[in-house]
């Protein structure tokens, strides 16, 4: 039974979220720490270098790390406050178990392990191995990501392992594999500095990757033109040379029309196209009718702006195109990505200094965590679980019979659907809070309630964990050594600053003990994180994401090494494709024809307004940690409905009025934030909150056919003004996720 054991208010009272603040003079020892530990921020894909102050095995504060080359001390508000988790009063300090009518009670590790393993065995014996699924996350290190991939296949013996990267950058991964045969940003961020033109499409850099802003501003100091494609006037767009306020869902129409303009004006690199690419003819055939009138209609951007953007891009000698979830969270996410890549390939501006392209990975280890077997269709080194040679190689590394290696499983949202249908009966999750982060989350809640057994490993009792039978107290980023791979492909070192508090344990130890109790202990005989990394190196050898030449020592000595790095004497690869030798079977970069098609749910008379979702600078993902940090909560305490004054006037909505937003999935109330910085036909709600404040009660669970990413960025809604104003009580309690 995975229903709440008691009312949600009782759970919140005991486990939070509660807001924590540092004491007035700082934590004990902040002025005289025992040591400063060089590590990285636990949040976004920038993985900024930071030093944590440690006193008596507790985190006492932070000190900027000036020498780390990406950020040179710079941090965002989340980075400044990230040290607040270790001392947090909500921190889980031992395993707990669900007790009907009472809530959650502390238990010993033996009891938690016995119950978990007996339930895994019971469910798998009764319903088959795949009836027990695993959901993981890429805020975990490379070592944990790798080990979980192995754990699910070798110890749990299930095909159904997937991860929250499925909500993050899988569309980019799908597009990059098709076009380049490899899934990584093609350049380090250093190539931004002297690019003549930068396109930022669907990437709210100044709120989601704030420290990358410095690189964009530096480029502009050097004369770069900045083009921002976003339905909202995000902070980065405010001073941009061009802001293209696109209607959500119009991305591939815009990029298709721009490609046609490049072709019509012969702003093409024929030598590159002829010698190093394939598929150009079919690709331009697909966009031959995409004239400016058509594009204006599909995108909601004026003809003049589209032409100006294409002209800037077409005439540039160097350029960098960046995108993120804004174009990827769509049922045509892969197509949107490919339509961007087509613009890059047509101008041949890749694999050269200041010529770059890349997705900006959102999660801390969104890059590394998507390379080493964390996904339902993947084995380490970004290998394919359906490829016989790949299966054979990894089976040998793992010491198992290839026949025992499970096949391709269900993706994250498909797992939830299978739970809802009653096909998956048991679940283990780590580092994933689907009740907040998945679309149509009332459906997700129904699914969780149907599980026969759910065990969650986490540091805090996240909203999803409220439905668990057992919660195992795991470790924070600073409590376990490892590596992560940043959004630019740089493998960096996460150093253990402190040990987990009280009876909490390192995630790696928890996974290894479950594996041991499931009879696979001999396959998880790792004494240190470095042992795991060394096995990962071998497992990745020869794959597209080749880490073989990267060692802990090299990472520390060089402040990171860029993969691919196939041998110990290889310097690493900050800039891909300098040799024009792409990782596709024919060695060429592939153009892919993209025909525009509408979003899965478009507006109509009944649901006339476009709803899009996104993030705010003070929160990270589903807020499991950031909704517990007082200053971050106070900065933006509750999700607001951003609405243009003209649309607001049409409905008689004034600033702070409480508005009911309704979609075909559900309805929820949000105070209006009437601002001119959004399109007139679109409303925006940030998604980091749970319960009644969750934007994902409204979003749609339709998936991209290739990447299986949900369409968070566009659906149709109705607006109903109420006579109430947003109340102080609502504002003050939104972070807690009341039902």
């Amino acid at each position, binding site marked *: 039974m995975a229903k709440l054991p008691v009312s949600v208010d009782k759970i919140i009272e005991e486990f939070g979220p509660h807001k924590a*603040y*540092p*004491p*007035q*003079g*700082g934590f004990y020892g*902040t*002025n005289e720490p025992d040591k400063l530990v060089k590590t990285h921020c636990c949040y976004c894909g920038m993985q900024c270098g930071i030093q944590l102050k440690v006193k008596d095995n507790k985190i006492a*504060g*932070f000190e*900027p790390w*000036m020498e780390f080359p990406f*950020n040179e*001390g*710079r*941090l*965002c*508000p989340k*980075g*400044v*406050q990230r040290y607040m988790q270790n001392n947090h009063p909500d921190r889980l300090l031992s395993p707990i178990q669900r007790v009907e009518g009472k809530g959650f009670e502390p238990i010993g590790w033996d009891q938690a392990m016995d119950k978990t393993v007996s339930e895994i065995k019971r469910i798998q014996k009764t319903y088959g191995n795949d009836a027990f699924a695993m959901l993981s996350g890429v805020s975990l290190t490379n070592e944990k990501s790798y080990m979980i991939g192995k754990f699910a296949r070798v110890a749990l013996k299930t095909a159904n392992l997937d991860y929250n990267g499925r909500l993050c950058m899988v569309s980019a991964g799908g597009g990059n594999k098709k076009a380049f045969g490899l899934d990584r940003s093609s350049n380090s961020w250093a190539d931004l500095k002297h690019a003549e033109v930068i396109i930022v499409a669907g990437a709210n850099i*100044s*709120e989601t990757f*704030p*420290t990358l*802003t*410095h690189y964009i*501003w*530096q480029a502009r*100091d050097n004369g770069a033109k900045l083009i921002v494609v976003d339905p909202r*006037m*995000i*902070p*980065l767009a*405010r*001073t941009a040379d061009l802001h293209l306020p696109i209607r959500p869902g119009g991305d591939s129409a815009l990029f298709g029309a721009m490609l046609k303009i490049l072709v019509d004006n012969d702003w093409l690199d024929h030598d590159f196209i002829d010698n190093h690419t394939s598929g150009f003819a079919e690709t331009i055939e697909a966009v031959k009718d995409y004239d400016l009138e058509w594009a204006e209609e599909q995108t909601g951007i004026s003809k003049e702006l589209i032409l100006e953007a294409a002209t800037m891009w077409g005439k540039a000698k160097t350029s960098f195109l960046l995108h993120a979830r804004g174009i990827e969270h769509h049922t045509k996410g892969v197509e949107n990505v490919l339509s961007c890549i087509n613009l890059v390939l047509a101008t041949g501006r890749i694999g050269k200094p200041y010529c770059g392209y890349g997705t900006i990975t959102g999660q801390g280890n969104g890059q590394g965590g998507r390379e080493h077997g964390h996904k339902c269709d993947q084995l380490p080194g970004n290998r394919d679980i359906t490829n016989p040679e790949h299966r054979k190689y990894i089976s040998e590394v793992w010491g198992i019979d290839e026949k025992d290696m499970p096949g391709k499983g269900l993706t994250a949202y498909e797992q939830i659907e299978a739970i809802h249908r009653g096909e998956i009966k048991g679940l283990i999750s780590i580092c994933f809070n689907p009740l907040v982060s998945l679309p149509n989350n009332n459906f997700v809640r129904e699914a969780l309630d149907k599980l026969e057994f759910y065990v969650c490993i986490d540091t805090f009792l996240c909203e999803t964990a409220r439905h668990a039978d057992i919660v195992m107290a795991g470790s924070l980023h600073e409590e376990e050594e490892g590596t992560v791979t940043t959004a630019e492909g740089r493998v960096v070192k996460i150093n253990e600053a402190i040990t987990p508090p009280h009876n909490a344990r390192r995630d790696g130890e928890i996974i290894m003990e479950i594996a041991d109790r499931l009879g696979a202990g001999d396959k998880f005989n790792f004494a240190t994180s470095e042992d795991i990394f060394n096995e990962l190196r071998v497992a990745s050898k020869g794959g597209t994401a080749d880490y073989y030449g990267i060692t802990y020592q090299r990472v520390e000595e060089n402040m990171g090494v860029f993969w691919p790095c196939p041998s110990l004497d290889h310097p690493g690869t900050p800039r891909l494709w300098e040799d024009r030798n792409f990782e596709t079977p024919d060695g060429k970069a592939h153009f892919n024809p993209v025909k525009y098609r509408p979003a899965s749910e478009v507006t109509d008379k009944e649901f006339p307004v476009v709803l899009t979702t996104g993030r705010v*600078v*003070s929160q990270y993902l589903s807020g499991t940690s950031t909704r517990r940090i007082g*200053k971050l909560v106070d*900065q933006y305490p509750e999700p607001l409905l951003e609405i243009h*004054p003209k649309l607001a006037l049409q409905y008689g909505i004034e*600033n702070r009025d409480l508005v009911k937003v309704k979609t075909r999935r559900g309805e929820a109330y949000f105070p209006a934030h*009437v*601002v*001119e*910085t959004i399109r007139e036909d679109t409303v925006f709600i940030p998604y980091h909150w749970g319960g009644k404040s969750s934007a994902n009660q409204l979003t749609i669970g339709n998936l991209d056919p290739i990447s299986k990413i949900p369409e968070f960025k566009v659906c149709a809604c109705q607006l109903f003004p109420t006579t109430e104003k947003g109340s102080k009580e609502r504002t003050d309690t939104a972070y807690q996720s009341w039902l």
Partner: protein
Amino acid sequence: MSETKYNQEMAFFVDMQRCIGCHACEMACAECETNGQESMIHVNYVDRAVSTQTTVQVCMHCEDPTCANVCPADAIHQDDFGVVHSADTSRCIGCSNCVLACPFGVPKKMEEAELMMKCNMCYDRTSAGKKPMCATVCPSQALYYGTKEEIEKMRPDSVPVNSFLFGKQEVNTKVNIMMPKGTHQLIIE
């Protein structure tokens, strides 16, 4: 003062065009032990209804500080390097003269403590050869701490301005505001 590593060539620069309104500077400023979790730097929207433009206000460290001049208790001290320090807690009488007189609206009276508090250019850090906390963490480098030559070389389209005309009062400051090239003085009517 002879032991200090304070480098007088280093200056503080604010570029509002670069500010992304993230509040990292406030968060980091408040971490300083002497600030007691209160930030001495403030980020505000200019008019959120129409724009995401934010401004950031920090003590400008005037060459001839009005706050010190109007202080009846002689509590506000300007050191040999031109840094204007927070009111000396043993002298400050909480009269708010400085709060009312500052042309930039910087000093705040901490009502609970009945004391004035303001930025002292992270004296603990700058006198030890480090950068102020806010300018260290600022992810967009809207806040920059370095030499005038460095910033003029890095940002060729703008110039640092440290002269302000408030009506008839000319105020010259240690802190610079980055303005479009050709600007020499900011005139506030």
